[in-house]
Structure formats: C-alpha cells, structure tokens
C-alpha cells in the first residue's frame, strides 16, 4: 500500500462505498435504521480504524470496531454476517461525518493489535527466490501439458462415441475429467469442464452448444501444446484461460494505464462456494475496456473498492494478453465521483468490439460494452435495444430490465453491460441527466 493510498483511505468513505460492503440488501435497511439512533456512544476514528458502542437488544452495548485496512470487522453481537448491521451503521455514520476523530478506545486495542501482529510476519516471510520460482513454474508447465494431452484424448472420445452419452451422464458429465484438470493445475480448464453438465441439461439445442464447448476446449489444448510457436501476447491469453496464476506484484511492476476509469457494471456470481465479482471498467480518455476480478468466500462481503456508477482516477495494470482486458487497480489519485456520462458508441460499434476481441481470443465469452442512443423495447417477452443502426438483442439474465425501461420511458438512453453470444446483459443505464442507475 503506497503512502498516497493510505492518506486517501483515512478520509471517510462515500456512502455508496459503505453500502456496497453490505452482505445482503436486508443488512442495508437494518443498518440505515441504526444510523441516527441515539444509541451510539464512545465513537471515534483515527484513519486506521473506526469504533463505537451500540446499544442493542442485549444488556451490554455491542463493541463495534472496523479496521479500515482490509476492511475487517469485529462486533460483540451474535450476528454471523460480515459486516454485521452494527459495523455497517457505524461506517455509515463515519461516512456522514458523524464520528469524531480520536484515540482508540480501550475495547478496540486488543483486537486491532492482534490483527496487526498476525499480518506482519506473513509479509516478511515472502522473500522471492527466483530460482525456486523458475523450478516451480517448470514443474507446473509439465503437469499442465500432460493434463491437457489427456483432456484432448477425452474430447476426441466424446465425438467418437457420440454426445448422446453425455445426456445419459447428465449432471455428472465430465466430473472425472474436471478432477483430473485440478490435479494437472489447470484450474481454468477445470471450471470450463465443470460447466459442461449445465450445457448438457440446457434444453433444446444442447448438443450444438456442447459441441461448441468441446471444440473450444480442444482449441485451447492444441494452442497450449504449441505455446512456443505463439506470439507472446497470444501465449499469455492461452495461459490465462488454462489458469496459470499471475502474481499481482509482477502485474503492479508493469507500467500502469492512468485514466478516469468509469465503473460501468458490477456482477457477482457464486460458484463453488466462492463469490466471483466482475467489475467492468471503461477508460474515459483511452476508451479501453477493463475487467477487475475479485474472489471472496460465499457469505462474506465481496471486495468493494470499485462501485458501479462511479468514476475513479487510477492506474490500471493489465494482465498480459491479446486483447488486454483483465487488470488490477494500482495507485488511486482521487475519491470516486458519480458516473453521469460516457463517450457515445453505437450498437454496431459495440458488436464490432466484441467480434474484434473474439478474433484474437476465441475463448472470449463476454465483452463490456457501452451502447448509446438506444430505446429499450419489449415485445412478447423479447427484449431489444433499438438504435439508429439496428437492434441489439438483450439477454436479461437476472438484470432488472424493467428498471431500464422505466428510466428510458421510451426515450433514447445509454446502456452499459456485458455483450455475449445471446446479446447484451444490461448492468447500468444513463439517461444523460442523472447518475447511472444500476440494474
């Protein structure tokens, strides 16, 4: 953590940043109710932590402490949510400037000290040993190569004996292969194989979709086998899909791209007891698209450093790849501000962007797009975005498409979202006058 970030972090966070920490929407309501209740005492904040005592339903007031680095929460209430409503309410009060600066209260010190002691030695222990690292990388590459060779055999078996067998296997289809890919240290391939049963049971047209998935997997295995012949960036793309780890220290050492990054959408997916948060960004000056992925255990609040509908002035460090998309956030230069406007793009341009990405990375599933000057239309349950150059299919997924319709009111709006083969999955809508509405 650089000193600038630390200084920035000591300022109270905005209300939206705090609200985004909530593990569920019920907590937001519960916390909002607690915020101005006259039940807070011994409150304080010192730039590293915020604390306070909250009178609840128990006999003794709850001791609430939030360590802003992390953030991490401690509260004496019996709730098993992280953060609990008391911690959220305390942060909301802090965000609203209702918590005075001060020295840590007695009840905060023991927990904060324990935390500090726990985190320090871990940092010291990680001295990189380049030779050992190289040996590890070589071993891993060997395992992956062997694993993907087996995968290729399995894939060919599927079309030799016929995909009809997949229908009989149903949900257990490919499970042994997936396990093998985990052993082979190819986690990207493993999750792709684990997604196959979903395709098998996806109803009408499943065989075609399954064939597509299997074909793309073989394409990946073939590409990996010829990694040495590929150019550096394409090779990096292949490695990323296979699931080679990339150390964030290495990424942060690469030059960053500073821009006013608009957070055009955030989407959470729970898979294998892990919440995967996809944060889509778009550079205001560069026009570049970016994806920040974070992972958190199910039930815990995901990373909230980037909030949908805000603009952050920051450095992004891109993972190597062609096209570059995934990135990590480096230095941040200012507090986020509200997103009200995005550079205009037509529906045709959005589709072209997706297809350009596909041309160099055929494993691309979705691409973040901005579509301007479109009217959302629903006819017999089919949603489209109608622009001057044509209509873009909408894949509603779980998005609140009716909210998108409400904001537009039949007038042209700007819609942000993930564009995939089935159309755009909307994530935000801008009507040009108000901040982005999250869908």
């Amino acid at each position, binding site marked *: 953590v650089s000193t600038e970030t630390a200084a920035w972090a000591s300022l109270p966070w905005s209300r939206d940043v705090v609200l985004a920490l909530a593990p569920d929407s019920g907590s937001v309501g519960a916390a*909002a109710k607690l915020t101005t209740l006259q039940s807070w005492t011994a409150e304080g904040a010192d730039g590293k932590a915020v604390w306070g005592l909250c009178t609840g339903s128990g006999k003794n007031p709850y001791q609430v402490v939030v360590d802003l680095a992390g953030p991490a929460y401690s509260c004496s209430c019996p709730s098993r949510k992280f953060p609990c409503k008391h911690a959220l309410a305390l942060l909301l009060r802090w965000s609203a400037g209702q918590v005075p600066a001060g020295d840590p209260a007695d009840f905060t010190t023991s927990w904060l000290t324990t935390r500090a002691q726990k985190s320090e030695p871990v940092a010291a222990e990680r001295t990189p040993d380049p030779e050992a690292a190289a040996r590890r990388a070589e071993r891993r590459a060997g395992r992956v190569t062997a694993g993907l060779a087996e995968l290729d055999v399995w894939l060919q078996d599927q079309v030799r004996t016929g995909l009809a067998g997949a229908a009989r296997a149903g949900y257990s289809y490919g499970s042994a292969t997936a396990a093998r890919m985990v052993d082979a240290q190819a986690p990207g391939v493993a999750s792709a194989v684990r997604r196959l049963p979903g395709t098998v049971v996806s109803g009408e047209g499943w065989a075609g979709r399954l*064939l597509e998935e299997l074909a793309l997997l073989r394409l990946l295995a073939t590409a990996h086998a010829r990694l040495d012949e590929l150019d550096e960036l394409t090779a990096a793309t292949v490695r990323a899909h296979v699931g080679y780890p990339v150390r964030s220290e290495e990424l942060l050492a690469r030059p960053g791209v500073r821009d006013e990054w608009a957070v055009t959408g955030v989407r959470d997916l729970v898979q294998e007891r892990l919440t995967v948060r996809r944060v889509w960004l778009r550079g205001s000056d560069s026009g570049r698209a970016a994806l920040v992925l974070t992972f958190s255990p199910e039930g815990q609040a995901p990373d909230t450093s980037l909030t949908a509908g805000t603009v952050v002035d920051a450095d992004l460090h891109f993972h190597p790849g062609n096209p570059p998309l995934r990135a990590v956030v480096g230095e941040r230069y200012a507090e986020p501000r509200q997103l009200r406007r995005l550079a205009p793009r037509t529906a045709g341009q959005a*589709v072209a962007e997706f297809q350009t990405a596909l041309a160099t990375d055929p494993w691309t599933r979705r691409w973040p797009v901005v579509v301007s000057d479109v009217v959302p239309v629903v006819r017999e349950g089919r949603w489209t975005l109608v622009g001057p150059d*044509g209509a873009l299919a909408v894949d509603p997924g779980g998005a609140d498409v009716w909210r998108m319709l*409400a904001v537009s009111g039949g007038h042209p709006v700007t819609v942000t979202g993930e564009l995939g083969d089935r159309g755009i999955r909307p994530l935000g809508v801008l009507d040009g006058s108000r901040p982005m509405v999250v869908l």
Partner: protein
Amino acid sequence: MWDDLVTTALLGTTRRPFDETLVDAEVRRLLPAGEPPARLLDAAAFTSVRRRAGARLLVPDEPPAPVAPETRRPTSPAATRNLLVVLRGRDTELLLEVLRLLADHDLVVAPEALPALLDVGTGNRAVADAAGPVLGTHGRWLAAQRDVWRPQGSRSGTGRNEEWEFANLADRLEILRALRREDPARSRELLRESWSGATADERETFTDELAHGLGAGDEDLLERALADRRRATRDRAAALLARLPGSGYSRRMVDRVGTCVRRERGGFHVVPPTDCDEGMTRDAIVAGAHPGVEVRSEGVRAHWLRQLVAATPLRYWTDLVDGSPEDVLRTPVGDGWRATLLEAWSEAAVRQADPHWAAALLPTAGKQVRPELLSVLDPTTRSRLVAGLLARKPADAAVATALLRDCAAPWTPELATAALADTVSRSWPASAGIGLRERFDLLAHRLPPGQSGPLQQFLVIPGLSDAARATAVRALELLELRRNLHAELQEEPVTP
C-alpha cells in the same frame, strides 16, 4: 454445415463417419491433419467462432411511444433509496405512510423505484390505490407496458359493457367504483342488469360497494340484496337501507318500533314485540338463536326488540324527542329496558355509521367501550375521546391497545402523549408476549416520528427482559427510519 457437424458428433464418428465435404471450403483448408474426431472438433471450433464473429444486429421492433415529460418533481436520490428499502421490507403500513407523504409533498416516484412499486401494488390493493397519485407520467407509462401492471396505470373505469361482462371480480369492482363517482345512474344500471347472473360472492361485494355514494336510487338493488340467500349480504343490505330514511325498509322498521317504544310522560315506555312475523324475517330480523348468532341471556322478545331498534334509522329517535342524540340518551326508560336500548342504539350507530350518535354513546358506555363505535367517529373526535379514555387508565392493556388500533395514523400529539404515557406506566409481563409486541408495533407505525422520547426511557427500565427490550429497540429503529423519511422530504426544495 453446422447441423451436420452436430448430428455426426451426437451419433459418434464410429457410427456416422465424418463427411468433410459438408464443411465450408474455407474452414476445411485450415484444418490441421489428424484423426476424424480431432478434425471434427477443429471444424466445429472454426465454424463456431466464424459464426459468432459474424453475428449481425437485428431488425428493430417498433419502439413504444415515449413518455410525456414529468410535470412534478421526482423523489431525490436519498428519498428513492429509502423508498426502495421500504418496498423490500413488506411493511404495508409503513409503505402507505411513505406514499401518502410523497403525495402530500406533490412528488412523483423516481423511475428506478417504479418497477418495485408496481410489483407490490399488483398484489396489494391498498398500495395500488396509494401509489396512484405518485406514479406520475413515467409510472403510468410504465404500467401500460406490462400486462400485470396495466390496471394500476389506468385507474378509472370506462363502464363499457363488454369490459364489464368479461371482467373478473376485482376488475368489475374497479369499474364499479369509478362509476359510483362519475356516473352513479350508469353504475346502478349495470348492477341491475347483472344482478341475477352474479355469484353469491359478487353480490355480497357489490352490496358492500353500494355504501360508497349511497342514495335513494340504490333502494331497489338493496331490496333485492335483502332477499339474498346469503345472510351476510342480507345483513349488509339491511344496514344500508336503514341509512336511507325514506326507504320502504326504514318506514317498515319505524312502524314496528313505534308500536314497541312509546313516548309517555317524558320517558320511553317499552313493550317488546310479541312475535317475529314473516315480514320481520324478510327484513333480516333473526327469529331465534341461529347458528352463528351469539346466544344471549336476554329473553327472545328483548332479542327481537334489540334488532328492531338497531335496524331503525337513528333519525327516528331525534325526531321523536325533537332534540340531539344526547337528548335521546337522557330520556328516562321504564321497566329496566335502558340497557337493551343503549346496546341497540350502539349497534345502530355502528351499522348506520353515524358519528354524532357514536360520540354521544361513548360516555354512556362506562368501562366496556365498544371499539366499533370509535371506528365510526371522525378522526379528531376519536383521538380526543381515546386520549381521554386512556387517561382514565383502563385496567386491561389489550383494551387500551384495541382503542389505539382504531385510531388511524397520523396521531394527534395529544393522543400520542396519552399512548406513550399508558405504555410506559404499565407494568408489562416479563415474558413480553404478543400484547407488548402489538402495542409497540402500533406506536412504531403511528406515533408522530419526532415524539419517541419516552420510549427511550422504556429501554432503561430495570428488570426489563431481553425480549421486551428487543421489541422496544425494533420499534425505535422503525421510528428512526420514519423520522429520516419525514426529514428528508422536509429538506426537498419547494417548487416555486
């Protein structure tokens, strides 16, 4: 082509050899050497990527006609956020209060909260009614875009016959209500035409609905309802007919009561009816103890008398003594019939929804107040009376709570003070059962949000159980939320 690739893959290359001539020539040129299954997969990969990368935009559907500009201010982002919290909360009473507040401030709901509001309104009539004034042009436009929301966007019936004919009960009620306001004659015509074809449920609902905008023209419909097979329909019709002083029913009742209660020497002389004839039965007088009728200790003649008086227009009595309801109540009653008459008049005041009589009757009730009487009163009188009753410290907490329940929000400061004093001074059982929860629920929803001070004291009462404290904390949280909602709206800039 693609379909052939899929069929081959589905059957397996061992059963159906991969015929490469079916693959597009351009793709075939790119295929690396290999076994047929490998070549099939490669061909599928290339074909699929080529297809995905070649997808085009669709032919546009006709966009909807755009919404007209909003003439009123939408809710601020903070107010919208709070409304969304309330909408998720499933607390109808709180939601109704918020919607009423928005309407009072001449605001409309911001677009992003409209879908959630219309969703709640779809299953909740009261919410739909309260949402009407705050939907704005955006809300009405949006409701028109979705079948399940459409009725909420156009809340005024057209009374067109075909609509009526094919409408379900809820829609018919909608049409009927609008017509009762705009074209009462037409509403009666519709009812007359469809009365015999209506189901028992519909007839009961329609009879109920006649209470709104009741007039002499409704008499023939009510007479038909009085002959209905269903008892609830008959009772309802009888109560409404008694509100029409000129109706045949009212005249029949006055004739009957005239022979039973005479004014003699400045008092009432009572001779209860000697039998219950067919005419009385037809007018919904119950001859004996029916199933579902409370068995009374009084004699059967008193039972008939009570029903007759309860069904007689109250105007009859004030005309008889040429004075106010209070004058009637002051008139001496002979032979110990006073209690029966008081009870009958109370029933009449409730059935005929007469606030003057209700106000006059309440002080006579002693300790046993009929909460139904309160519901007839106008809100100000009711608040004043209930505050007075609470000050006399009713022994039973449940009775006090029932009195409060009949006072709709917003409470007057006077009533709020009385309610708080009653709550804090009472010693609640340590178990904090449903009684305490119900009381706090009422306070949380109906106290003026700034007036929660004494409840804070409640928290520090020694010996309070954790459950009771938790109940109080929840009530305080809700009051706090309401205070925020009110405060936020006060801060809204006033339209010039």
